[in-house]
């Protein structure tokens, strides 16, 4: 499970929720092979392979590979963005969180969602008008290419790598449970399929897989929520009443619980949730797959609607599962049963496969084996699609930013750049598989938390300042970015999640669970300080470039993709 795209947000979430993290870390019992699920899954893979084949025939240029040729409509792109968000983590993770803690699940859903309107109101237009393929295109627009691209590519790669590990571990666990496959085999399988999608189909295939998956997941979750609600005569009040009666925490599940306790951690988490979104390289890439700013705006609008709707569904799924799963003792471990019925105290801890499997069990409860197979296949496809998007973002950082702009200094041709990109994809895929296997026992939450913090601390400040602050210089952006990156990583390492839970020390060096409240301001202060004190020649050039950049930002004159598609 753990895919965690929105993972970043999620990360923090998981960190705060020990029980949840344990569910991920804990041993997974290999289960009997589920034939229906495998047949559904193979059908899905076959269908998406067909799309990849079709997409490959249309992927001729670097632009096609990175951005699907810029010819994707706002509605389609909105679905694809929603697909990136509706990860297995959101679907399985939030429903599991609601199942175990109730209201707290909603707090996280809201945090994931509200970053979108903010990006839209202040940045989407500028991003679309300045960028070409990657986030570094935007950040480096008027600055020294080598310095900024190196920094941006590096932080993108770190974000992507940590997400990838989390995905691979999550995928392995999920497959182990769903299909009864061996963990290592499951991870290798995910890696191979992901490589096929990305290397041959590029962004076109990845986007279409996301779109199809988003539609299937939305329909499946809608069906599941409605079927579950029908058990309560479609009355939320009745559902809440029975859930409170059956839950070991009783009425506590109706309000905020232990996830966010002290104000500082609450605010820090809020900052990370909101601004991390704006710094995720694979999300930012989606602004360049549409032909113009108008379609970019529409895609954010559709995405916000789909994501919001989806979170409301997962909330219903989690709450109804509190009541409905208990009626199926077969979903529980033997030691959770008393005289064949589920012991109330073991409602949460006794669930087979842990709380991450809540939605999967509920699918079985309301729709039987066929629906279980369908949801399992979609959940797997979800991980595959998110992993593909992440790999593509990582490959772009290497081939487009590091190779084409920094190493070849813009003298490479597109054919070579594409070759580098495909090579980078394969390398990243192999690394992801290896790390996925090495990190099998690792708590994916901390990696996702790190990825989130880095996105909000290293990428976001540079991005927003380059667009809005005319006095930022190359030196300020570069040092600010590196400082944001370093502070976020260091603070995460010395916090409880790694220092105590992973390394095994007795107490954390810092009580902050999420570094955002310190690392984000550090980056901004460094950008400001090293820009205003920068008297170099390069700085003069940077300041002069702002006017032209601003005109392009505001009007789209000279922007990519305004024609030809």
């Amino acid at each position: 499970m753990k895919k965690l795209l929105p993972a970043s947000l999620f990360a923090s979430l998981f960190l705060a929720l020990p029980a949840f993290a344990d569910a991920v870390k804990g041993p997974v019992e290999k289960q009997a092979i589920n034939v229906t699920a495998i047949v559904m899954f193979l059908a899905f893979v076959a269908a998406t392979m067909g799309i990849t084949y079709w997409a490959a025939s249309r992927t001729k240029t670097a632009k096609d590979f990175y951005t699907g040729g810029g010819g994707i409509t706002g509605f389609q792109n909105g679905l694809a963005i929603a697909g990136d968000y509706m990860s297995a983590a959101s679907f399985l993770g939030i429903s599991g969180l609601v199942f175990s803690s109730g209201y707290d699940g909603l707090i996280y859903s809201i945090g994931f969602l509200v970053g979108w309107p903010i990006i839209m109101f202040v940045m989407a237009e500028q991003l679309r008008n300045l960028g070409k393929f990657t986030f570094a295109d935007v950040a480096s627009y008027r600055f020294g290419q080598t310095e900024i691209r190196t920094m941006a590519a590096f932080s993108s790669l770190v974000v992507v790598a940590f997400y990838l590990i989390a995905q691979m571990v999550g995928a392995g666990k999920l497959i182990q449970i769903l299909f009864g496959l061996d963990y290592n085999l499951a991870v290798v399988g995910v890696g191979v399929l992901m490589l096929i999608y990305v290397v041959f189909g590029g962004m076109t295939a990845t986007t279409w897989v996301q779109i199809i998956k988003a539609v299937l997941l939305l329909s499946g979750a809608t069906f599941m929520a409605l079927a579950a609600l029908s058990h309560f005569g479609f009355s939320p009040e009745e559902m809440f009443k029975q859930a409170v009666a059956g839950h070991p925490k009783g009425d506590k599940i109706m309000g905020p619980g232990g996830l966010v306790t002290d104000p500082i951690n609450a605010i820090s988490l809020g900052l990370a949730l909101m601004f991390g979104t704006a710094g995720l390289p694979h999300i930012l890439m989606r602004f360049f797959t549409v032909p113009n700013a108008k379609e970019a705006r529409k895609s954010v609008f559709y995405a916000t609607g789909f994501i919001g709707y989806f979170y409301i569904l997962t909330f219903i799924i989690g709450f109804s599962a509190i009541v409905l799963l208990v009626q199926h003792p077969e979903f529980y471990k033997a030691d959770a049963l008393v005289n064949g019925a589920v012991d109330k105290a073991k409602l949460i801890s006794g669930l087979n496969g842990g709380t991450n499997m809540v939605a999967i069990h509920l699918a079985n409860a309301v729709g039987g084996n066929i629906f279980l197979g369908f949801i399992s296949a979609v959940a797997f496809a979800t991980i595959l699609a998110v992993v593909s998007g992440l790999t593509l973002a990582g490959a772009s950082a290497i081939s487009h930013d590091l190779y084409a702009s920094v190493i070849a200094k813009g003298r490479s041709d597109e054919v070579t750049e594409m070759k580098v990109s495909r090579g980078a994809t394969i390398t990243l895929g192999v690394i992801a598989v290896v790390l996925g296997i090495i990190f099998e026992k690792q708590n994916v939450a901390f990696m996702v938390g790190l990825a989130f913090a880095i996105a909000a601390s290293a990428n976001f400040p540079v991005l927003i300042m380059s667009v809005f602050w005319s006095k930022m210089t190359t030196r300020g952006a570069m040092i600010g970015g590196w400082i944001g990156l370093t502070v976020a990583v260091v603070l995460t390492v010395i916090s409880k999640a790694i220092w105590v839970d992973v390394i095994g020390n007795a107490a954390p060096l810092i009580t902050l669970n999420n570094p955002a409240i310190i690392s984000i301001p550090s980056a901004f202060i460094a950008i400001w300080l090293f820009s205003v004190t920068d008297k170099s020649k390069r700085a003069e050039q940077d300041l002069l470039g702002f006017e032209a950049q601003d005109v392009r930002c505001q009007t789209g004159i000279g922007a990519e993709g305004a024609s030809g598609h």
Partner: protein
Amino acid sequence: MQPDVVRQVKSNPKYHDLVAKRSAFGWTLAVVMLVIYYGFILVIAYSPTSLAAKVGAGATMSIGMPLGVAIIVSAFLLTGIYVARANSEFDRLTHEIVEAVK
């Protein structure tokens, strides 16, 4: 971009009109969203019990439930409000500015 294009665009009063209107509108909506979200976060941080209060006598549903859903809906509506104006008024202005320099 050519320096003369930049000069031309910047001397167009419509350009300043667009920039002023759009940033005022965008930031206003952003502040509304931030106030809603951080208001919610602060209530969670300082007064979690007020969210757990019941919607009415004898009810199980807490105030936090419809409130949470309302925040999700507000994010969607605010986005829709922005898109409606940006894709009509702002795009029309942008188009006029771009045409003027062709």
